């Protein structure tokens, strides 16, 4: 049985670093691809990335067209419903604005009192 020196819990003996360095040296770097293989991989990755970006852009444009087209169709088919939605929206906006102004005024009064 060997006696190891008593270190604090967080101390890292130098011999442990040496053990790991020997592991690094002994195991080498596996099968490291050549520069040409990395270049091919880079070119392939760029092509794939460009394709993906084009695909995402197309998806975005199609979705936007679908939404805008849907709204336009609804507007042309039943204009009364669209006007109703706009009126409700506007009324809701005005109500929120008015009530928030009232709340702000009440808050200011309370603060000064």
């Amino acid at each position: 049985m060997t006696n190891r020196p008593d270190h604090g819990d967080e101390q890292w003996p130098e011999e442990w670093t040496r053990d790991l360095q020997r592991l690094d040296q002994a195991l080498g770097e596996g099968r490291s691809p050549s520069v040409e293989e990395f270049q091919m991989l880079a070119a392939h990755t760029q092509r794939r990335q460009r394709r993906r970006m084009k695909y995402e852009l197309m998806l975005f444009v199609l979705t936007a067209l679908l939404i805008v087209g849907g709204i336009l169709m609804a507007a042309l088919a039943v204009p009364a419903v669209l006007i109703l939605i706009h009126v409700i929206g506007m009324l809701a906006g005005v109500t929120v604005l008015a009530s928030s102004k009232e709340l702000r005024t009440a808050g200011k009064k309370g603060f000064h009192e």
Partner: protein
Amino acid sequence: MILEEEDWIRKAQQGDTNAMGALFKHHYSFLYKYLLKITMNHSVAEDTAQDTVIRCMENIARYNGTSSFSSWMITIATRLYIDRTRRNKRETKWLENEQRRSVTQLRWQMERQGEQWTDLLDGLAQLSDEHRIAILLKHYYGYSYEEIGSMLGIPAGTVKSRTAYGIKQLRKELNAHDEQT
């Protein structure tokens, strides 16, 4: 070499595949050796290294130079490896057997080259991934607790406690080995 590396990075960010090839060839060995130590498994290290290279190539434009390029790479590699092990948690039993088999392989490979497989390496192999990663990054690669925390996306205090616990476990393992011999 640093100037050359900066030049490679700048060109790679502009889409130069030759510079990208040279840059990743230069760093691959470091990346693979790091992954081999944290995974203790040749095939997982190789797979993760390849995934890391692809991920780095895709995101090279986002590299801003606040850390060294190798640190940026091993941050991505560590996160990829952690994600992969989380996804494979259901296959724990199989993974444990695979881990044992690959440690035996590493040991055999090292001894074939006349190097001794020490109790420390045995102990490291038995630690959980999170403790092994914290210990290696702190004590072998020399990162600070804060740096490791930002690499792994966890608080520095957690890194500190993982490192301390890991070393404690290692000492326990080594003492158990000593008592047996």
